[in-house]
């Protein structure tokens, strides 16, 4: 599909340069609502995105038409370029770096029947059903084909699979609402052990939450679970984007190589992690995939770039270009992995607190915060009411706390990490253990 449009772009009356992405996605989903299978659905979508450089200016156009007309698409991209900015993109070419090989397509996932998906959902519903709780389970399988290429001769093609199994449980007792959520996300189907981990994780969270206790107050040690870490990670993700750096709004601009974090902390972006749905051999601009050290032993590492931002920042793309069917390519993370020194003891992906609570006299475990991403994220400051949090007293979880808010600054908190948990796990596209952070402000009503 992209060959025709790139040929047209190269041909007579064409443009200086162009690149294109074609993607076809097919999703199959089953949904259990309040423990009952309620719906099954499929979704099929294909689209083509074209970017051109015409008289030095950049323009884009996209279409979901079943049989796109290359000429019309090119005309639309050229019209877009007439208003566009000047830029010189270093399109990858066909020759040099061989594209890395990485498994992205798993037959088991691709071939899973509707019955397979339903059975998996049913198993989770049966394992987790409780008379006082409502359980929803969603199973979604995706099969995608991607073709990406440019007029400099680079070509990339791959197929990928993904499966997501999400469980959410709601327990309402009087006016008390408790919500527990967890998920399995992978490129390959979950094995029995993965589903068992999911069940145990939900059960552990739920059981420890049944009793409600008074929240503590003051400046306290807080264990952020892999899910709870979102508020702490988000400012870093924004600040480490080459776009934010280029715009002058990143607090990490000009700090590459400086030790700003605990020296045991390393964070990488790795599109080559096996078995993850966001892994791929090339990015959406056909740049070969490679890992990027965002934070290396506490030092600010490398920022991530796509082709355009790299060109403007006079550096090279890190292979973090991402594009949809409409709009131009932009910077996107792939798989973010925390590489801290893991805690002692046997790994327990579903343990609550990750083995970090033993020395806490009074504090919290934060598993979910409400409103992450709403505030002045880039500054590192956050302040959120707890969605799901537990009080820790004398090294033990004593119950769930409500009506409390936690606040802090990610940059301050990550200077000294109290401990890395033994519960490292994937949550969506992020792998991390729990982190014990000291000096978090906890307010209660």
């Amino acid at each position, binding site marked *: 599909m992209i060959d025709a449009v790139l040929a047209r772009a190269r041909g007579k009356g064409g443009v200086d340069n162009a690149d294109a992405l074609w993607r076809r996605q097919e999703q199959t989903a089953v949904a259990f609502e309040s423990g009952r299978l309620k*719906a099954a659905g499929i979704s099929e979508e294909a689209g083509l995105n074209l970017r051109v450089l015409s008289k030095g200016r950049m*323009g884009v156009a996209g279409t*979901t038409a079943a049989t796109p007309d290359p000429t019309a698409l090119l005309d639309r991209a050229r019209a877009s370029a007439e*208003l566009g900015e000047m830029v010189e993109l270093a399109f990858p070419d066909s020759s040099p770096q061989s594209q890395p090989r990485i498994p992205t397509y798993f037959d088991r996932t691709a071939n899973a029947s509707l019955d397979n998906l339903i059975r998996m959902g049913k198993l989770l519903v049966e394992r987790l059903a409780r008379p006082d709780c409502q359980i929803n389970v969603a199973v979604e399988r995706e099969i995608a084909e991607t073709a990406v290429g440019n007029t400099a001769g680079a070509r990339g093609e791959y197929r990928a699979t993904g499966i997501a199994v999400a469980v959410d449980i709601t327990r309402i007792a009087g006016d008390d609402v408790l919500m527990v959520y967890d998920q399995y996300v992978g490129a390959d189907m979950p094995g029995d052990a993965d589903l068992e981990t999911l069940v145990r994780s939900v059960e552990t969270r739920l059981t420890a939450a049944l009793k409600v206790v008074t929240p503590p107050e003051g400046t306290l040690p807080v264990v952020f679970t892999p899910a709870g870490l979102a508020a702490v990670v988000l400012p870093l993700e924004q600040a480490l984007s080459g776009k934010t750096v280029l*715009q002058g709004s990143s607090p990490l601009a000009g700090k590459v190589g400086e030790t700003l974090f605990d020296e045991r902390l390393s964070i990488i972006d790795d599109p080559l992690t096996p078995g993850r749905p966001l892994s791929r051999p090339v990015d959406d601009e056909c740049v070969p995939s490679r890992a990027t050290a965002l934070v290396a032993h506490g030092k600010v590492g490398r920022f991530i770039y796509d082709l355009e931002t790299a060109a403007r920042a006079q550096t090279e793309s890190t292979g973090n270009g991402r594009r949809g069917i409409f709009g131009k390519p932009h910077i996107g993370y792939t798989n973010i992995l925390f590489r801290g020194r893991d805690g002692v003891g046997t790994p327990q992906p579903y343990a609550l607190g990750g083995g970090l609570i033993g020395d806490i006299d009074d504090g919290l475990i934060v598993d979910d915060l409400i409103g992450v991403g709403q505030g002045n994220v880039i500054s590192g400051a956050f302040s*959120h009411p707890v969605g799901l949090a537990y009080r820790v007293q004398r090294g033990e979880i004593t119950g769930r706390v409500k009506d409390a*808010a936690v606040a802090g600054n990610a940059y301050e908190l990550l200077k000294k990490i109290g401990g890395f948990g033994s519960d490292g796990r994937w949550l969506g596209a992020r792998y991390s253990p729990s982190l014990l952070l000291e000096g978090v402000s906890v307010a*209660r009503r």
Partner: protein
Amino acid sequence: MKDRLAAAVKQSRADYTEVRVERTWSSAVAFRGRRLETATVSEDQGGFVRVLNKGCGWGIASFTSLDELPAMVTRANELSRAVRLEEPIRLAELAPQTADGVLDLDGDVRGIPLAEKKKLLDRYNTAMLGVSALIVDTQASFRDEVSEVWYVNSEGTSLYQLRPEVVVSGTAIGRRNGSIEKGLESIGLRKGWNSVQGFENQFRVVAQRAVDLLAAPRVRGGAYPVILDNELAGVFIHEAFGHLSEADFVYENPQAREMMTLGRRFGKPVLNVGDNGAASGLRGTLPYDDEGTPTQDTALIREGILVGRLHSRETAAKLGERPTGNARAISFRHPPIVRMTNTYIAPGKKGAGFKDLISDIKLGVYACGAFGGQTMLENFSFTAGWGYMIRDGQVAELVKDVVLAGNLFQTLDRIDHIAGDFTWNQMGGGCGKGGQFPLPVTEGAPHVRIEEALIGGDV
């Protein structure tokens, strides 16, 4: 097109079949700092089929290739039959609707050259950048669309709707040394080109606020009497209460139903709340929802008492109530689910103003604007764009990082004064639920006082 849909519905073997086809023309312009990011025109189109059979669940198919429509009806039927249900899904009765619902385009965006749109946005962006050297970055975006939606179901409903939309928004980022603040302006309307002219000053104001916030202290965390401005009060009612009034939250859940029993007291008699999908010219306005139900003004809280909720045909049937026209999908890629439209807190006593709310507060917070809000049913959070301390009945110093954390039941019950100065917030952005974001909605409210609310932050 209606005929094509009708033919597909007719050949369906399912007990109930509905087909929705959308064709959306849109254009978008974006600036980041002084640099243009994009200027594009797009055309998106696709279809959605949903079927139901006796003793079975929903079978759903969405697709971009319209040639596949008949095949997709068959696929959806197969999927429905694979879902066996003991308790059948019923749909509330609805008389067949046939109409063309064409909303006022107020300057058809399809006829305006992209270069003109770039020029307009450039003016707003330049207005923000020109405020101060401390404005180091901006994000400005213009997006318009005209969406044609055809809907036909097997009960005889056949609709065509033309839905315009235009959104202009800007974020100004101020920076001084290590500290970074932002100001946000957003205008979103179910209208066209004529309705987004002449907003330079609003964009200047938000950039100036980002600069002012750089020097402002963080609010000190704790419990305060809080006055919400119109915008934040609107976001509050949407987040804190609106989502609970969506019947898909209660219809399968006996405990939730008990919590949301009609007739329960939720607030003081000053509190009146509703959702009005039929209001004129707002972003959440639609003649018909995505199940073909006409929209309406639904009272949710009347004088503090819960009196209604928002329904799809399925939730209405289950609860023995009437559909309210709140089944909405963000696009053909998604099934309709219960959503808000234009949600509001009705104005209080006529003539009651801000002064009446503030005069007896010794120490409190005046929370203004909204960066966003999120709810976890009983608990919610919303982030004000900025705030002021209230001291001895007067608005005092500017403060930043004002986050309200609350419990729904306590907070609604603590609303003790509502002013008469009602306005709709004509914002862009939108509401997210069940993976469907951003759904165009509007919120409206006057100034509202909460006797005591928790403000996050350092203690």
